[in-house]
């Protein structure tokens, strides 16, 4: 087990180094003068240029610059935003809970609907129900979610006036951030109206972001269940006279869940991708929207720091999934 853990841990080091290389050379590949890119100023005069050259350390050899960059990154210094002059890490940390809250809600939505739907499709294999579930899930998988979001706004917000169009909470509420998750913070504050407002704001973005993972989870659950249902121990359980429901939920589902859990975990990275689009559509104040805005403002330090931070998050989640999988399924450790 320790060996397995150490191998997995050692594998993320080269990946992390690779990501720092991507982030480091990113700014240098932007057309134009790197000083002006980093300072966010145009037409810098000669004296200021040499001064900034020293400040950013761009007069040193590239390898030394990279070494300095790595040193700073490891100390948590990811530079400052050109626009707000706030440290990139601090901005990221203040926005990240919004993205996590959205991503977790979306995953929950996908799992709560996707797993039962997948089980149903597997048990009723080749029936109308099975084809229906698989058809809907392939549609969800093919869905351009930026359009899906607009469509839901069109129906729920414009047509029926049920949900708000954008943001996380109505402007009249101010909730002191404790966890950064508005649903929890409003609950802790005991403000029922604010909680409802936060929940109503969350519903559409959650559905939009959860649609792709929902399709993947349903398909995966179905195929995992089909595989398990064909095993000998299922036949044995049935032959013992156990009820169909018990065989499906206890004997089959527990074994099928192993692969489903892995897929769910690996969808987290996909969720961050989808969050960029979802946050843009709903003006959800998370890191995805932050990074898109950074591109519009040519705020390269934010872009550089953001990609490294998001990449590291995905990497850590994948590692966690990998290790968990190793714990629940000892066969893959070797």
């Amino acid at each position, binding site marked *: 087990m320790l060996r397995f853990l150490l191998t997995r841990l050692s594998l993320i080091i080269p990946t992390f180094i690779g990501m720092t290389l991507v982030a480091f050379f990113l700014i240098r590949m932007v057309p134009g003068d790197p000083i002006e890119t980093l300072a966010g100023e145009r037409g810098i005069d000669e004296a200021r240029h040499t001064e900034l050259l020293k400040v950013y350390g761009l007069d040193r050899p590239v390898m030394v610059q990279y070494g300095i960059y790595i040193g700073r990154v490891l100390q948590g210094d990811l530079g400052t935003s050109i626009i707000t002059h706030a440290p990139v890490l601090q901005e990221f940390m203040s926005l990240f809970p919004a993205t996590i809250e959205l991503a977790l809600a979306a995953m929950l939505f996908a799992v709560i609907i996707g797993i039962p739907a997948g089980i149903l499709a597997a048990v009723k294999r080749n029936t109308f129900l099975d084809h229906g579930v698989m058809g809907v899930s392939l549609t969800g998988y093919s869905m*351009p979610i930026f359009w899906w979001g607009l469509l839901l706004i*069109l129906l729920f917000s414009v047509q029926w006036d049920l949900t708000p169009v954008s943001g996380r909470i109505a402007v009249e509420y101010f909730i002191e951030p404790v966890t950064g998750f508005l649903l929890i913070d409003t609950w802790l504050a005991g403000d029922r109206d604010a909680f409802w407002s936060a929940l109503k704001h969350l519903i559409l973005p959650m559905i939009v972001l959860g649609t792709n993972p929902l399709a993947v989870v349903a398909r995966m659950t179905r195929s995992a269940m089909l595989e398990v249902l064909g095993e000998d121990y299922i036949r044995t359980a049935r032959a013992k006279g156990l009820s169909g429901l018990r065989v499906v939920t206890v004997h089959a589902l527990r074994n099928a869940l192993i692969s489903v859990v892995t897929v769910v975990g690996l969808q987290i990275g996909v969720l961050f991708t989808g969050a*960029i689009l979802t946050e843009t559509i709903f003006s959800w104040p998370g890191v995805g929207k932050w990074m898109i805005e950074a591109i519009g403002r040519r705020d390269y330090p934010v872009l550089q720091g953001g990609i490294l931070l998001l990449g590291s998050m995905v990497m850590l989640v994948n590692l966690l999934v990998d290790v968990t999988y190793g714990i629940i399924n000892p066969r893959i450790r070797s």
Partner: protein
Amino acid sequence: MTTLTDDHSFTPQHPLREFWDYFSSNHGAVAGLVIVLAVLLLAAFAPWIAPYAPNDTDPSVFLVPPAWQIGGSSAYLLGTDAIGRDILSRLIHGARLSLAIGLVVVTLSVVIGTILGLTAGYFRGVFEVAVMRIMDIILTLPSLLLAIVIVAILGPGLMNAMLAVAVVVLPHYVRITRAAVIAEMSRDYVTAARMNGAGHLRLMFSEVLPNCTAPLIVQASLGISSAILDAAALGFLGLGAQPPSPEWGTMLADAREFVLRAWWVVTFPGLAILITVLAFNLLGDGLRDAFDPKLKR
């Protein structure tokens, strides 16, 4: 012994014939194929089918609803947008762009991915480790984010968007090819070819590669759908094809501000993306099932 004489009359089916039998028994796959062919025809004959040119503006008819709604006109079946362009004509012309995006991205990533995967799986060693590590890094970064960053550096535009999407999907082709090559390399026919004095290039390209094509074809057909989807997402974010291009994602970005007033300018471009992507996914799923011997009854 009787079975032996029976076997005499048995003639094996032609492989293509057998493939088609499996493929055509899957209704979804056939539906996908039909839609893909229809989109191809629309794209090929767009100037003759579309009632108007895609960028023809007519200020007198802006935001006309679809023909079946009150105020609609049969001259504009799916209505017009904010500056009086016919939406149906733009969608038909947009099919050209979407198919071109799919083909260019997949061709780029298949060619580069196959060469990288083939050399990695054939030579192994340091080269393989280096290539696969780089692919791991690309896979670790959220794909749309990486594409966005690449476009942010290269500058917005259709060409750069296609390039970015091709880079992002590259690891899938490298991994598939490498895995297939490694499996094939231990086969007897490879050893036999080597004994006959076949060189590296000959072994790689004319012996091993043709036997690895099935998974690549499947991945490519599924890849077209994700390429169309990703490029449309970039267009929607303003980083892909630029207005007034009738690219479907770009049309949606233009239409966003009218979501409260004119549902049709928002609905139809997205529907076009969904139908096309769904068709390619159905087709890809059907191809995979037809190729995969394990699923054959």
